[in-house]
């Protein structure tokens, strides 16, 4: 398939230059020398555009696949359809003002994103966080991980052909949304974390709901295992499909469960423990096969690890304040704002200028989000706005993996592999 052939068939109406370069790059992939043009007498080759509106691509991902019969010869990904320029927005907002934008990055696990930003800012501005806030954050993060993995599980199994399963996992996700509602006051975009702590303490209602969820969820998980672990159909769709070899995984830069399914036990919670992850016990599930099935097992085991972390956090949850009591570093509590003049002034100052890290300071902090290592690199110029904030998004790296592992697979497996890699376009496109 040559570029000129494609162009005679496709009449792009806009971004002409972009389309041309994309097809050119597809043609150039794996081509080191001039290819022998042996023609295509049976016309078994075609270029298939999948997305950006395809329902199975989990968002606005576009794949340009060159097919030979039913085999994918090579593939190029086109991303950026959800690019909002959040890094540019961050440079024009105070740190706390930017936090709600992080909810909309990886919108399947907003809690982890809030925490990632807050911890990075706390690191650069040297803010102490009360003990209780750390544990609340951990509970929130692990709930977010379960919620995100449940969505992955539902959609991935749906991509493999089992529609009703999706409804089952959503039943459980619904409970997590209810917990988030009780915990943070929002169901979806929670924005619960604050620089220097969290917005509010866990209420008794929320604690009750979390405890109930922790008790009932393992049974649900057992049911999922019962349905899928020995399911011949599920195995055939996932085994040896989309293999990321151990030797390639680090080189291509895979992250999170995708990396762990290929044999590396890299988990930021162990690598450089943040919050109080050093004080709870948990395992890092890994597999060696690197195929879709391995990713399934890794994520399923992560969910039960999360449940055990939440249980330990509930047991250890110390008493005390949930936000640092330093008006130069964090918002004062609402009681103070409404009943004292200083509180009011401090609240205004925090909103107007915000927290100012030292001039020239740089810091990088990463957390283990459900998709992998989510890091914030901040450069400060001494004002309340970051000079530069770089977001290290795991989905972005994992999409690059996708571009590498799809070559040579069957076209029917594409959606399953996308499901297994589990990208979120809101995060990948920044």
């Amino acid at each position: 398939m040559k570029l000129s052939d494609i162009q005679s068939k496709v009449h792009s109406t806009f971004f002409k230059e972009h389309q041309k370069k994309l097809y050119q790059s597809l043609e150039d992939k794996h081509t080191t020398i001039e290819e022998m043009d042996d023609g295509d007498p049976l016309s078994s080759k075609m270029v298939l555009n999948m997305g950006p509106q395809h329902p199975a691509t989990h968002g606005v991902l576009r794949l340009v696949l060159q097919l030979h019969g039913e085999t994918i010869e090579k593939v190029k990904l086109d991303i950026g359809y959800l690019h909002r320029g959040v890094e540019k927005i961050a440079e024009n907002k105070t740190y706390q003002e930017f936090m709600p934008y992080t909810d909309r990055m990886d919108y399947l696990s907003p809690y982890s994103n809030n925490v990632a930003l807050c911890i990075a800012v706390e690191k650069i501005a040297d803010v102490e966080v009360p003990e209780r806030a750390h544990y609340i954050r951990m509970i929130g993060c692990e709930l977010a991980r379960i919620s995100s993995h449940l969505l992955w599980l539902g959609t991935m199994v749906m991509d493999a052909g089992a529609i009703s399963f999706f409804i089952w996992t959503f039943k459980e996700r619904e409970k997590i949304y209810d917990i988030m509602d009780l915990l943070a006051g929002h169901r979806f975009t929670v924005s619960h974390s604050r620089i220097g702590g969290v917005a509010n303490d866990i209420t008794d209602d929320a604690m009750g709901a979390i405890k109930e969820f922790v008790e009932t969820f393992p049974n649900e998980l057992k049911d999922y295992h019962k349905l899928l672990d020995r399911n011949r159909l599920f195995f055939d769709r996932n085994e040896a499909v989309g293999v990321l070899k151990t030797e390639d995984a680090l080189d291509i830069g895979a992250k999170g469960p995708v990396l762990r399914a290929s044999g590396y036990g890299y988990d930021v919670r162990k690598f450089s423990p943040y919050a109080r992850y050093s004080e709870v016990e948990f395992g890092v599930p890994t597999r060696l096969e690197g195929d879709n099935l391995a990713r399934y097992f890794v994520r399923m085991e992560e969910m039960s690890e999360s449940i055990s972390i939440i249980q330990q956090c509930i047991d250890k949850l110390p008493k005390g304040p949930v936000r640092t009591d330093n008006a130069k570093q964090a918002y004062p509590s609402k009681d103070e704002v409404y009943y004292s003049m200083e509180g009011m002034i401090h609240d205004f100052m925090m909103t107007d200028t915000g927290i100012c890290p030292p001039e020239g300071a740089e810091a990088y902090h990463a957390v283990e989000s459900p998709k992998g290592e989510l890091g914030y690199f901040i450069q400060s110029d001494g004002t309340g706005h970051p000079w530069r904030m770089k977001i290290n998004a795991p989905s972005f790296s994992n999409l690059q993996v996708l571009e590498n592992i799809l070559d040579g697979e069957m076209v029917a497996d594409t959606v399953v592999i996308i499901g297994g890699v589990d990208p979120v376009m809101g995060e990948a496109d920044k």
Partner: protein
Amino acid sequence: MSLELSQPLQESVDALTENFSDKLIEVYQSSGDTFVRIEAEALVEICTFLKQKHNFVYLTDIAGTDRYTSDERFEVIYNIISLKDQVRIFIKVRCDEESPELDSVTTVWKGANWMEREVYDMFGVQFNNHPDMRRIFLPEDFDYFPLRKEFPLLGIQGSIELPNTTPDTE
């Protein structure tokens, strides 16, 4: 300023000082992270050295920044990890505004491909020997680099062709 380095990091920094004394510009720490600034022409050489001799096998991120200064305006930061020693180090290189060019590290870590494309897309820093130097988020038809400080927050009117909002009228 004295540095507080963990032992494996100290070893890596010592090895760098020993082998590349004329290429090393500064080593400093900020908020607990270690940054090594090097000459741009030695980038691939030093990265290969770190990967092969000091187990920095995993490249997690490449960040570009616009320093907005008259010389050496752009800075590119490589965030690399050694899984064996459990340490993270940041390599920094700078390049000029006139012809922002750096050597690509895709030969060292294959995963640098998209990350470098992102830096190019946002700052216009070209990477030599890159296998696929295209923009990644924005379409090729776009002529500006949005994360440069002079690019306005509201964008530039008419810089990009937008779809017809009334599709029935041709």
